[in-house]
């Protein structure tokens, strides 16, 4: 036992000696929390628009006034010639051109129909759709009152705070990064440096070496997870509706899974570069894009949805969202928890098979 503790102490010393990496390990979640919490949003705001007003009557000016007053739009210029439209959109000077036809107010009165043309830069299709919708809403004004009242209730996120959506995903990503990637790198580094031979020749059993290597990262991951949940709860008001114990249990399970994945990667990587490439490309990018963190899984084509089922973060994010944000208990997440357990068992089994006691 004493040997084991000495070994763990050595690993901790390695980590703390490398101050730069340590700063970044804690910096990444904090910076991401800042970005997602305060800077990034899918909403449309301050969209630059250009108005081509060929009418210049009171009706057109009224509409332009409403557009200017709206926080969604920013009037950056005018156009008086259709030839200008192309270069305005191409250079990105504006994302939308609003064309009010000649004699607009007159036509509204006499013909009962006035035409406005909206030209949107659809190279960003999502934004373009929203821009058209918002512009249409502003031009039309308020809808008549004699209609069905549709009351929409946003469950679990009444105020539509974006923070709710990304905290679970952020946790998955950070835990994967620290537990899987760092574990893989540290074990491979010993192989590459040649110090692994020394470890293997020592009285330490291989299982003790592996456990000793992952323990510091397990603790670091746990600390990071607590920081993320803490900042989320206190700064962004993200609730923990479900049982905190269940949440912590799932977090520990996921950390365990990520660690075993890291060990598995280290057994198949010959050097650090390979370990980093596999965990970087093979883990991080798919984690961000295929796990449901940013892009909803239901929108993806079927083959990708199937692949997504193989990704551990996908299940963890779902569990996290349900327990933290919807207050689900174990009866609702048992299936996903079981999947995570099975995956961990598989990773550990394969790692143990592949771990070589003798060096080739």
């Amino acid at each position, binding site marked *: 036992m004493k040997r084991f503790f000495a070994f763990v102490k050595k690993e901790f010393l390695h980590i703390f000696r490398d101050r730069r*990496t340590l700063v*970044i390990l804690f910096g*990444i979640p904090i910076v991401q929390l800042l*970005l*997602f919490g*305060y800077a*990034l949003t899918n909403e*449309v*705001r301050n969209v630059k628009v250009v108005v081509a007003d060929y009418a210049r009557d009171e009706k057109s000016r009224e509409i332009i006034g409403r557009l200017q007053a709206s926080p969604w739009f920013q009037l950056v210029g005018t156009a008086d010639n259709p030839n200008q439209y192309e270069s305005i*959109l*191409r*250079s990105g000077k504006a994302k939308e051109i609003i064309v009010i036809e000649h004699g607009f107010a007159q036509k509204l009165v006499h013909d*009962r129909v*006035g035409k*406005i*043309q*909206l*030209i*949107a830069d*659809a*190279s*960003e*299709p*999502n934004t373009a*759709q929203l821009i*058209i919708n918002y512009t249409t809403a502003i031009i*039309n004004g308020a809808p008549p009152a004699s*209609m*069905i*009242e*549709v*009351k*929409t*209730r*946003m*469950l*679990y*996120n009444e105020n*539509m705070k974006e923070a709710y959506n990304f905290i679970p995903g952020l946790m998955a990503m950070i835990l994967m*990064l620290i537990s899987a990637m*760092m574990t893989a790198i*540290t074990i491979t*580094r010993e192989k590459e440096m040649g110090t692994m031979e020394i470890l293997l020749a020592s009285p330490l059993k291989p299982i003790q070496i592996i456990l000793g290597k992952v323990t510091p990262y397990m603790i670091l991951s746990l600390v990071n997870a607590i920081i993320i949940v803490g900042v989320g709860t206190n700064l962004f008001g993200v609730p923990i509706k479900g049982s905190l114990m269940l949440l912590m249990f799932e977090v520990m399970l996921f950390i365990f899974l990520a660690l075993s994945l890291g060990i598995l990667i280290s057994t198949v990587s010959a*050097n*650090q570069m*390979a370990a*980093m490439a*596999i965990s*970087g490309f093979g883990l*991080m*990018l798919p984690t961000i*894009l295929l796990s449901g963190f*940013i892009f*909803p899984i239901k*929108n*993806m084509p079927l083959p*990708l949805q199937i692949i997504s089922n193989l990704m551990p973060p996908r299940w963890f994010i779902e569990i996290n*969202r349900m327990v933290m944000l*919807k207050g689900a208990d174990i009866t*609702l997440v048992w299936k996903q928890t079981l999947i995570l357990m099975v995956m961990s068992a598989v990773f550990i089994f394969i790692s143990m098979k592949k771990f070589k006691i003798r060096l080739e």
Partner: protein
Amino acid sequence: MRILFYILQKEFIQIFRNKGMLPIIFVLPMVQMLVLVFAATFEIKQVDMMIVDLDHSPVSRQLTNQIMGNKLFRMNAFPTSATEAEQMIQASKSDLALVIPRDFDKKITLHQNPDVQILVDAINGNAAQLGSAYLSNIILDFHKSVLMQQKVAGAPEASVIEIESSFWYNPTLNYRHYMAPGILVVLITVIGMFLGSMNLVREKELGTIEQINVTPIQKWQFIAGKLMPFLLIGLFELIFGLTLAKIVFHIPFVGSFPLLFGISAVYLVLVLSAGLYFSTISDTQQQVTFVVYFLMMIFLLMSGLFTPVESMPTWAQNIDRFNPLFYFVRIMRGIVLKGAGISEIFNDFVALLAYAVGMFSLAIWRYRKTS
């Protein structure tokens, strides 16, 4: 000049000797691009919903049928009460529930406003929210058509503003056209920054850098020698990736390819130099990986690839001026999708050029042959 040539030869031999890394350098980015462009979309395919019809009247059934006929919505559960519907949403079994109240038919016939309720799972992404907005519109349209059937008399003909909208450069609002050039940019950046920087730090770690340092090679030659192989690899991947994107996703390539090529070269110099700069201040591969990863992530998230830049607060947009990805994504989309020419992207290009020159000089200046 001859020295540079020999250094390049050495670098290329080393790269291609590393058989394990070759698929990672060449195959992985292409695979990732294909996979990720298919995945990265906010287009909604389907919304799982439930309808709780407490009225069971002909009108409510009419509304239900109309919604069920809409391809966007998929009825996947049939709860009998609002409470049951809420439980299903909590279990993530469905995204949306429409509750039609008991007096729906009565109120419509009496020209009153029935209280229709939509329960939305606001957690599972924006699909439910967009679905609920769409559903509200369907319900309003339904009400309008019912009113017209009842021939509500009296209201004078109001004047109508006819709004005609056109979507330029992407009339079908194809999300893939939007994502593919952007993801390609990301992948090339990753290759550039990671590989370029790791290469140099690896030499430091293994100690072979000392042998280079004792030669009379000049600093700029060494840095250029580390940079150029990955510049060439990056450009090659750009061509390959764009061709692949054109074939698989049918991305229309409207602008001038030589222009894009030239600007990409400038961009790669910028990114590679940045990576090399970080290698000169790092001691281990691990450190450099994390620094590069950290920066890449910030650049990526703020680049305008996933979320619009204008929606960010002013302080964030100011920081974004230092983000090379911000400029390059704009340029790439401008040239590929909008057919922009040099005059239209001039400002972005000058910014990139200035940064590239600055970063390259910084890397050379920071590199020390003696420790």
